[in-house]
Each structure stands twice: as C-alpha cells, then as structure tokens.
C-alpha cells in the first residue's frame, strides 16, 4: 500500500463490506459531498473517499499545473489511488465531471473497475451544432470562469472564518476541518478550465464496463438530452431519470440517489446469478 498516495489524495476508507466502492467528487468540491450517500453503503461495501490533488485535504504541494491541465491528470489520481489500495473490480461512483474522470480511468485500466456510476454526467458542456447540444455557449462558460474569479477575491479565508457558524451542528465538524470546495483560486480555475472545455464524446463508444447514468430533472449543467446522448453512445449503459432536480442530487436528494445506485447493483447481481443458472444447464 502506497502511503504517500493515500495521504496525497486524502484517501479515507469506511464500511464493513468487501466490494470496493470508490466515490469521486465533481468539480469544485471535496469528498465531503458524498457523506450522505456514502454512509448508506458503508454496511455492505468498502467505501473509499478521496480528494483530487488541489482540492479538499489533499497535498496541495503535489499540484502540477501541467498534469492537471486536463482531465487525464485527474484520472491519473484515480488510478494512483486504485493502485495504492490494490483495487480490482471497484464500483466507481462519480459526480458530474467525476464521472468523466472515472470513465477515462477505466479506459486506461479497465481491470480496476466493475461498474461506472455517473451522476449528472456530461461528456462535453459546449454546444456543437447541429447535432450536439451540451448546454453552453463558449461565452457562457467564460462568464462562469469570470464569476469564479470575482468570487475568489477574498475567498481564501472566507471559509475558515465561516467555520464557527456551525457550532450548533456538531455532525458537520469533520466538514469544517477540511477546506470545503477548493480554496485555492488558481487551482479551482484550472480545474474549471479542464472540466468545462473538455470534449470526451469520442471516448464513449470505447467504454467496456457497464454503466449507470443517473440523470437529474431540470439540471442546467447536465441537461436530459446530454444524459440521453451518453446512454446512446455508451455500449452497456443503464439510464435512470431521477425526480431530483438541480445538479447535486447526492446532496439534495441523497435517498433517491442511493436508491437508484442500490437498485442497479441489485439488478446486476441478479442478472449475474441468472446467467450462471443458464450456464449450468446441459
């Protein structure tokens, strides 16, 4: 086990199960966003949480501008964690761009993963008329970067200052110790650039592991048509449209999110045993 990777990526392992379940955050936040969903799997699975280098409680000193200038670098983080823990056939759950990062990782080392669960995924946020509608024009995404920059004026210590406002909610103590949502403006901005200007559509048909797409209703970041596009392009995918709205169902609708993940995993294991039965016939 490679201790340096585990501390570099702030890897935390919970739960009593055998099967590894790796939760990858999306853009902007750290592993704490998974708290509610991940907790519900701790009884049956080995829950693994981590932060990308540059976010959460990762080792910011390990940040390399070149490596993390595109999503491949973040996928390397995932592979490093898998290698350090000697993981095989993990269930990968990725929110938003975390799903894409997991997909890229699975293309490089498919043996690490058994399933890819994508929560509000999008392979490409930019519109590419006439056939692809990612949801955004370039100017709008540039506007987002601008908005981020504006908010980083004076953000660096804003979060630590806000810590004391949660004395009445001790269960959040763990959250407060970490730097929730990347505080380093430069790293966050570079992550945003790597995330929002990426186009991984051509990789989709190459994905070999089975995939669950959890699509939110009224998600302006990953709209329904994008989820459907993914379902169409991924060779072995299951598509579920959630009642959850917005882009953060794991935080806003943790029960529904957990439910769909569990249902998918159950169905899968039943199918496997059915297949086995068929295989037993003379």
């Amino acid at each position, binding site marked *: 086990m490679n201790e340096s990777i585990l501390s570099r990526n702030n890897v935390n392992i919970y739960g009593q199960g055998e099967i590894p379940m790796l939760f990858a955050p999306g853009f902007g*936040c750290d592993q704490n966003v998974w708290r509610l969903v991940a907790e519900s799997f701790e009884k049956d699975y080995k829950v693994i949480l981590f932060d990308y280098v540059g976010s959460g409680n990762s080792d910011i000193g390990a940040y390399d501008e070149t490596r993390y200038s595109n999503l491949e670098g973040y996928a390397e983080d995932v592979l490093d964690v898998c290698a350090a823990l000697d993981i095989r056939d993990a269930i990968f759950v990725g929110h938003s761009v975390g799903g894409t990062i997991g997909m890229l990782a699975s293309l490089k080392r498919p043996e690490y993963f058994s399933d890819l669960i994508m929560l509000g995924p999008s392979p490409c946020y930019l519109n590419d008329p006439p056939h692809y509608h990612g949801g955004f024009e370039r100017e709008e995404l540039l506007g987002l970067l601008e*908005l981020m920059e504006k908010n980083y004026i004076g953000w660096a210590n804003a979060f630590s200052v806000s810590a004391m406002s949660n004395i009445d909610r001790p269960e959040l103590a763990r959250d407060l110790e970490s730097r929730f949502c990347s505080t380093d403006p430069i790293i966050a901005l570079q992550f945003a650039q790597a995330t929002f200007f990426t186009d991984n559509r051509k990789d989709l048909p190459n994905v070999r592991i089975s995939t669950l797409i959890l699509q939110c209703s009224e998600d302006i970041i990953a709209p329904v048509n994008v989820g459907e596009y993914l379902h169409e392009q991924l060779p072995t995918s299951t598509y579920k449209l959630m009642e959850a709205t917005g882009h953060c169902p794991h935080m806003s609708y943790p029960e529904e999110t957990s439910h769909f993940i569990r249902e998918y995993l159950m169905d899968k294991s039943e199918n496997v045993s059915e297949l086995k039965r068929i295989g037993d016939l003379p």
Partner: protein
Amino acid sequence: MEDRFNFAPCGFLTLSEEGTILSANQTLLQLLGYELEQLMGENVNIILTVPARVFYQFYFVPIIKTGKPVEEMYFSLKSLDGVEIPVLINAVLRKGTREIDCVLVPMHKRNEYENELLIARKKAESALLEKRKANEKLEIALKELETKQAELMNLNEENQTFKTETKKELHLAKIIQEASLTSPIKNDFIQIESYYEASSDLSGDMFGVYQINPHQYGIIILDVMGHGISSSLITMSLQSVFQRLISKGVSPDFLMKELDNHLHGLFQNNEETWHYCTVIYLLINTFNQTVHYLNAGHPPALWQHNTYEQYELSSTCPPIGTFSNMNFDYETFNYEKGDRLLLYTDGVIDPYDSHYLSALLKRYPTVPLPVLKEKLLQLVEEQATYHQEDDKCFILIDLKDGVDVLNKGM
C-alpha cells in the same frame, strides 16, 4: 414592518431547498423589473445569468447543503430586460425550516473596481507568464550555448592538437626543404651568395648553385606560382630534376625542356592542380668567361658590368608549365672581372620597384658580396609592405678573373 422589509435597502429572497422562489421583497423586484407573481414558484435560475446558474449549482447549493452560510458570494442576476446586475449574496438555511433566506446587495460601483482589479491582476499574471516564458527560453538558449561552447572547446582542443602536430610536421618539412639548398661558393674565379626565406613554413621558391667542373657553374632560381605547401611540393619535385641534370652539365635549353616536360607531366591528368613556374638558369664558364642563360618568364636578372653599366637578362620565353612543345633557346654573353649578377624572385621586391635594386647595385659597386647582401636585405625590408606574404629568394654573383689570369700569375 412589512414596508420596512419590502423597501429595505437590500434585496431579500427566500428559496426552497430545490431553488424555487418562495418570496422576494420590492427592492429586489424593482431591481429585476419583475412583478412578484411572475417570480413566485419559478426556479431561481429565472433571475440568474447562465454562468450564475452553473455557479449556483457548484457553489451555492453545496455550501447550503452542508449547513454553512453563503457569505459575500458574487452573483450576476439577470433582469426581465436581460440586463446583468452584479450583486453580493448572503444566504442561510433558516433554522428549523427547509427555506433559504438570501440578502442581495447590488454592487455596480464595487464591481467596476473589482473588474479593474481583475484586469490589473490578469495583466500582471500574463506579464509574469511572459517573463517566465522568456526566462525559460533564455535558459534553453543558455544551455544550448553552453553545449555549443563545450563543443567549440573540444573542437578547439582538437584543432590545437592538429595545429601543433601540423606545425611540427611543417617545421620538419621546412628543415628538409632548407637541407636541399646548396651552399655558397667562394673561390678565385667566382663568389656566390644567396638568400632564401619562405613566407610560411614552406617556400615555392628554390635555387641551386653547382660547380659542375673546375670551370663550369650552374646557377638556377625558380618560383612556382603561389606559396605554401602545394607550391613547395612542386618546387621540391622540380629541384630533384634540376639537381640531377645540372650536375651532369646539360645545356640550358635541354634543362629547361626537361623541367617544362616534368611540369606538364605532373598536371596532364589534373587541370585543378595546374601550376606554372618562372625560371632563370645561368651556365657560367669561368674559363672563357661566358654565360649561357635562359629566362622563362622570370623577373629579369641584373648584370652589372665592371664599368657600372647595367643590363637586364630579360625573359626569353614564357614560364614553364604553360604551353606544351615550347622551344627554348639560350642567350650568351661574355663577362669581365668585377662584373656582378643579381638573380631574384618577385617576392624580394615588386617588379615595378626593380629600379631600387639596380640603384643599390650601382651605389655599392665594389663592396664585398656579404656586405652587399646585407644592404640588399635592408632594402627588401624597407620595401616589404607589399610583398611581405611572398617567398623571397635572391642570388648575388661576383665574377672574377678567368683561368687565363691565374695562369699568368703562375
């Protein structure tokens, strides 16, 4: 109190956890240009610009969901008319409810300042980036330079070794060339002094003085075009031919023909290496005091009579190695005791300045030959500006009594 809330100097907005607008005060409505009914029940996205909608999902929602207050978050609202309104938002999930209370303060002026700040920072950043790039380029250039320098140093070292070896070789060659030079002759009938200096290590000039028999002396001076190694090689090859032939006492025309043939033979298959050569050959007979001579394109030799009259032994044919099948005819003259001869190559003095030589000979008609040689060398040095880089060679001959006179004294 209702009015106070409605017309407070800040916008007020209540959202459900899902982002549905539950209430808004008049200040906010006026800012946005909406009526309350138009907003109630709508998603907050309706009053956000597209970037703000994304930002809301990525930052606002997670912060509220983890139970923290949103503090001084910068947002861009969109009014009914599509006008962007920069605002700062503070928001909290109201205790005991699932409602989010938001306070919005427009910040047009501050926004402009911040824009300025951002522009300034971006400029500084790009300047820094430029600097870093420039530095990187410089470092690469420096490394290349260092590599090149190291290469140069190596080459230089090789070159130095090569130079040292070449110099050694050349020095040895010079010694060999000089060893082939004949010694001065001094007896009762004739005295011969010579001077020989190469411009580089090796010379394209050559001379030879030979006593063929008690009465006959062969004196030759030649100049192969150019100077340095190539010329000296040809010179040495000619030297071996004339040494053999002169010692046998051949006639001047036969000697010249042989030297001419030798040169043509050297270059018949290679135009590139073609060289020609100017030669004077004197065959002096001290018994009957005659001189047979042939001048093939060489600067004229000077013959000063004991009466101080001077004659030029001018060119009688083109240089050897030029036209094939040339005919060589020698000239003959008689001399007397006290006559002097000077043979020289064009490195000694510019042919146009040859009057200096004749003047010198005239001024010192009777000084001993070694003294005249010194005077001549002084003159050559004074006139050296033009021909410094050419090989230099000259021969001085004092003609004395014939054998008859000696017999008289016996």
